[in-house]
């Protein structure tokens, strides 16, 4: 049975007020821009979002912030967003800062059925407050919990009708682990290929994690910091 959907509206309609969503991307690279736009249009509120960053003003997850749809944000770095700052300082937005590697592993663990794990990351810092500490071979670790969300929003480069995914360059980032950590995973891609057209050896994410695939068009793929060289 094909997982391909011809419009995002129906799939995103399942996201209700108060839902939790894990979202792929690093900065603006590899973000599911069509899914975010659709969710903005739908206006769903009180969302808990897990994503490495929170977009910028007027793009990416920044659109949902601006629209006051996010109740709680779990991220590792949020420095690029003035709306974020305003909502955080006014107490409108709940924020949990999570070290980037810990966030990645929490998603990987959640998607792999592992409820918690120990890491040295954050020991002796604010991040460790209130968390279980345990010593292994003379070194201190803290316990961090896996993340499973109601929905996962993923951006891939290519997909086939089975939901097998291929990512491109550093647009891969959090997307493959995010895909595993949602109860319902919706993927948008630049290119939909036919059954059998992906070499099984090339597939980054197996279709088992994916419920819906949508082929987007006219990707903006905005660049946050255009840096060029005359030599190269």
């Amino acid at each position, binding site marked *: 049975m094909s997982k391909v959907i011809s419009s995002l509206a129906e799939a995103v309609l399942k996201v209700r007020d108060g839902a939790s969503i894990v979202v792929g991307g*690093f*900065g*603006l*690279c*590899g973000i599911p821009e069509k899914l975010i736009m659709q969710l903005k249009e739908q206006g769903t509120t009180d969302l808990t979002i897990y994503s*490495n960053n929170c977009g910028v003003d007027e793009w990416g997850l920044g659109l949902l912030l601006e629209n006051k749809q996010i109740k709680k944000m779990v*991220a*590792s*770095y*949020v*420095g690029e967003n003035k709306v974020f*700052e305003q909502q*955080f*300082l006014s107490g409108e937005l709940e*924020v949990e*800062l999570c*070290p*980037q*590697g*810990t*966030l*990645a*592993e929490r*998603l*990987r663990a959640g998607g792999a059925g592992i409820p918690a794990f120990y*890491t*040295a*990351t*954050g*020991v*002796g*810092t*604010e*991040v460790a407050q209130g968390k279980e500490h345990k010593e292994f071979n003379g070194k201190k670790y803290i316990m961090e919990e896996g993340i499973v969300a109601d929905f996962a929003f993923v951006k891939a*480069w290519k997909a086939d009708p089975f939901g097998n995914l291929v*990512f*491109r*360059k*550093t*647009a*891969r*980032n*959090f*997307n*493959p*682990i995010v895909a595993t950590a949602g109860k319902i995973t919706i993927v948008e891609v630049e290119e939909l290929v036919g059954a059998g057209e992906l070499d099984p050896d090339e597939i*980054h994410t197996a279709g088992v994690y994916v419920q819906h695939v949508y082929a987007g068009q006219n990707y903006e*793929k*905005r*660049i*946050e*910091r*255009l*840096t*060029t*060289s*005359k*030599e*190269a």
Partner: protein
Amino acid sequence: MSNGRERILQRAVKEIEDGMCVNLGIGMPTLIADMIPDEVDVMLQSENGLLGIGNYPHADHVDPDLINAGKETVTTKTGASFFDSAESFAMIRGGHIDLAILGGMEVSETGDLANWMIPGKMVKGMGGAMDLVQGAKRIVVIMDHVNKHGESKVKKSCTLPLTGEAVVHCLITEMAVFHFTDHGMELVELQEGVTMEELKVATEADFIVKSSSLNV
């Protein structure tokens, strides 16, 4: 670039050895990439999922799907590989990265590092810094020795929230280079033109001097 910064970067690049896998933090450490001599072959790691960062692209070859952890457009070098964020940090936490060079706001005499937030000001987040300081084999911090009010950033103990406790192996400032050992913080080099008296005045932390190893 100021003289002090240039001096810090020139000294920091010497920490990079042929064959290493190195993570350069956002900001001043990123500038080291361009200073690595051609004969020193290293793989630069970017925690968003790239080992083998190349030069910045020519304007005709910019690719929005290819950025570094500072969100700058980059290229790949020969031998580069891509991976997801979980694997990227497995590489970091698992001790497979030889060296991380990070910026600092404060370093204590016991090797604590604070570099991610200033309470009361906007919190940007720690990104990958807390993972890097725990995972990379060697942590080098580069920073100005004093802040803009002339106060020492090399402290007895950090006043800002920590990134990690006793994680720094080497501190490079425009005044000196210190190593952190079982015996404490040890001065290993004075930067050119800096006297011991000047260094002592500018340093809140207590440090050991082994004159035998010091090139004064």
